[in-house]
């Protein structure tokens, strides 16, 4: 067994985060919502003070794509903001782009990202002032995009996008918009089913009873902007892939109505079921909290805020710490090799 406990302490420049429990501090799990293959355990609360970061959809603008593979993002808000990991934009008559990394942007500041990737192989033209609605790269592409951070090559993700499209029986090419064109109603339907709960600040996403992603926002307002792009573009495609592959959705425990005696009996069975379901959620959270952080690498420092790349057993992603407390986390299960 490999012990990497000291490695994390060494690389985070003083941050003493050793397990996922440290990232989940201040968060409580709510009632899971499930639809088809997908399930979302909502998380509430945050170690980060509300209002520390501007919500991304309201504050972030893609001001320009200067060259293929280069994006300039601007924070139009009055507060610093976090560029969500693997944010991207779909736009008519211009080449769609997405980020390989997350980033910290001070209020009113712009930043050029030269290691972005083009997500539409054969469309000419640059995006200029895109629609503020962003997407998040589909989950199966996220570990690949993160591994390509720092590499300046606009076509670097095309091969993986084509492979992703093949899994969905779509055209074998580096066009992520194939997903939207073919499956927009299904993607939207997933958003309608995996509804956000009031006060939600994060979520654990599962696909057929396997955790596929952990997403934490600094506060509710930030989560409200993040929820739809995450569910619609990042996690809903997993459900579609499972449908294409003919996997039977995991169903969990259901209400047993055989040999009912009375309405009170029905009520009591319902209450028991709800308690059991919550117990399962709590067990999942306990398992996740025990996962050790294998490595972390500081990528950006901005005042009291710090952006890091982290690796936790089967997961990889980035996080933002504010005064060494987790404000934003986006972790994705690594693709099988």
């Amino acid at each position, binding site marked *: 067994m490999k012990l990497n406990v000291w490695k994390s302490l060494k690389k985070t420049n003083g941050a003493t985060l050793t397990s996922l429990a440290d990232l989940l501090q201040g968060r409580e799990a709510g009632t899971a919502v499930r639809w088809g293959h997908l399930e979302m355990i909502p998380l509430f609360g945050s170690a980060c003070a509300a209002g520390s970061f501007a919500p991304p959809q309201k504050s972030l603008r893609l001001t320009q794509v200067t060259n293929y593979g280069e994006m300039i993002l601007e924070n139009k808000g009055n507060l610093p903001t976090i560029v969500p990991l693997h944010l991207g934009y779909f736009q008519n008559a211009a080449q769609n782009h997405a980020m390989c990394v997350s980033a910290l942007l001070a209020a009113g500041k712009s930043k050029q990202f030269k290691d972005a990737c083009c997500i539409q192989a054969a469309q000419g033209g640059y995006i200029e002032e895109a629609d503020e609605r962003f997407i998040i790269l589909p989950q199966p592409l996220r570990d690949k995009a993160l591994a390509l951070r720092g590499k300046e090559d606009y076509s670097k993700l095309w091969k993986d996008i084509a492979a992703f499209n093949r899994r969905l029986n779509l055209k074998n090419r580096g066009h992520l918009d194939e997903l939207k064109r073919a499956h927009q109603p299904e993607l939207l339907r997933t958003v309608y089913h995996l509804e956000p709960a009031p006060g939600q600040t994060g979520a654990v996403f599962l696909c057929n009873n396997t955790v596929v992603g952990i997403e934490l926002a600094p506060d509710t307002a930030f989560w409200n902007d993040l929820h739809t792009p995450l569910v619609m573009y990042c996690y809903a495609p997993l459900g579609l892939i499972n449908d294409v592959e003919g996997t039977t959705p995991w169903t969990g425990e259901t209400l047993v109505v*055989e040999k*009912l005696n009375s309405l009170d009996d029905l009520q009591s069975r319902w209450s028991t079921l709800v308690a059991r379901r919550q117990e399962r959620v709590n067990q999942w959270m306990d398992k996740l909290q025990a996962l050790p952080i294998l490595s972390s690498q500081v990528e950006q420092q901005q005042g009291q805020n710090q952006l890091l790349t982290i690796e936790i057993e089967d997961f990889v992603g980035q996080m933002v710490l504010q005064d060494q407390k987790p404000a934003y986390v986006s972790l994705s299960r690594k693709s099988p090799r």
Partner: protein
Amino acid sequence: MNKAPIIYRLLNGDAQLSDEQHDAFLSKDRQLYAALLRLPNLSAETAMAIIQRLLAVTEMAPGQAVPESLRLQEDRLIVETLPHLPVDTVLAGFLKLVERRVNNQRTSGWVRAYIFGAPQLESWAVSHRRDLRILVRHALGNPVTLTCLHKFVIENPDAKTTAYLQRYVLRYAKNAALVRDVFLFLFGKLKQSQFSLLNAYLTARQDIQAGKGLHFKVLQGIAGTFHAKISQRRLRRLASRDKVKREVSDEIDESLVGSIRHYYRSGEQLNAQAIEQEMARLPYWDAFVYFIIDASASMRGFGTREYNSIAIATGILKVFQKRIRQTAHAWVGGSDDENFPQPMGTTSIAPALIEVVQQKPDVIILISDGYENIEQGDTAAVFAGLEQLGIQIPIVQIIPAFTERDRIENRQLLPTCFLETGQRGFLSTWLRIRAHLAPDSLEALLRETLSEGSQQ
């Protein structure tokens, strides 16, 4: 002729009447025949065929005119039906009346009111120019049409001219300047216009690029005559791409649902009269009805559909509450606002259903888009449990929809589901629920709808 099975089949949307059945129904029971227009699921073609006959047949029996009161009742039914039918179907129906030389005063009035009063008149003028020209000429007659054309080109018309135009044409107009230009346009007397589509059509004859935004078929027509060498591909690029999803667009939706949706979007005061008006259309229902209303996040929707589902749900509740002997309701999700809650939270219908059954209502109406998530299948399991316990309370689901073509697969949480767009008010929902509960009294129910809230 046994009317009940015909009505039942029409209610379920799986029947078309033959010409003979139409004629027999009309002659046997004209009032009930007209009331068929109130049936939900009635096809546009059947509705138009009914309207055609009501306009064409002016006598109950030879020498016996249709009574004034019945005619007014029919007019009310026609006015609530026509705006919701596809324009192609309505124009085709009116053209059949032209073919059969039906040109009584009532028909002429309806044709003029439909055309000149239409909010989409400009768009129709360019896309249905030939049909409109035939219908206007038929409705006015040749001499009046020519006189109107002559009078419309006068720059400073005197009072007599204005009165003449008012009498024959402008009395129906919502926008007199537009109606003038359309009238001249239909008969080839318009050279230019302040209205963009009319102008695009006229200038596209010289420069096809100026026709950008016109429908593809309109551009094809212009190109066929004036620009024979232009490729279809270029025409497609120039053509407007807007898909017409509903016959009644958002801007002109004056229904109660339209008002509530506007209230949700703008926060502007809701006109309470809109609820009263809709309420007056529903007959009284002597029952104890419990509503379970889904106000979860998905009931908000996105884009053009934003707030549509919650507007339908709150609208049904407000109106039905006033027309039912006893009601109670339970929200699933939603903000604390008891009147018009903001949609938020998850969809956990099953526990609400268990609670509500314990109150022993006569009927339970669940209004939900059906995007169940805690957990998928729970409502059906509770329903199965209730059936096993022998609990006989009828439970129906109303699925709010944007159009009648909305897909509702996987959203039907209960065996009995009805779709409601609210575009034509809530009478259809009322009728479907009541017919579901008492299928044998369908004919009486349909007649009851004509009495418009007279029973209390």
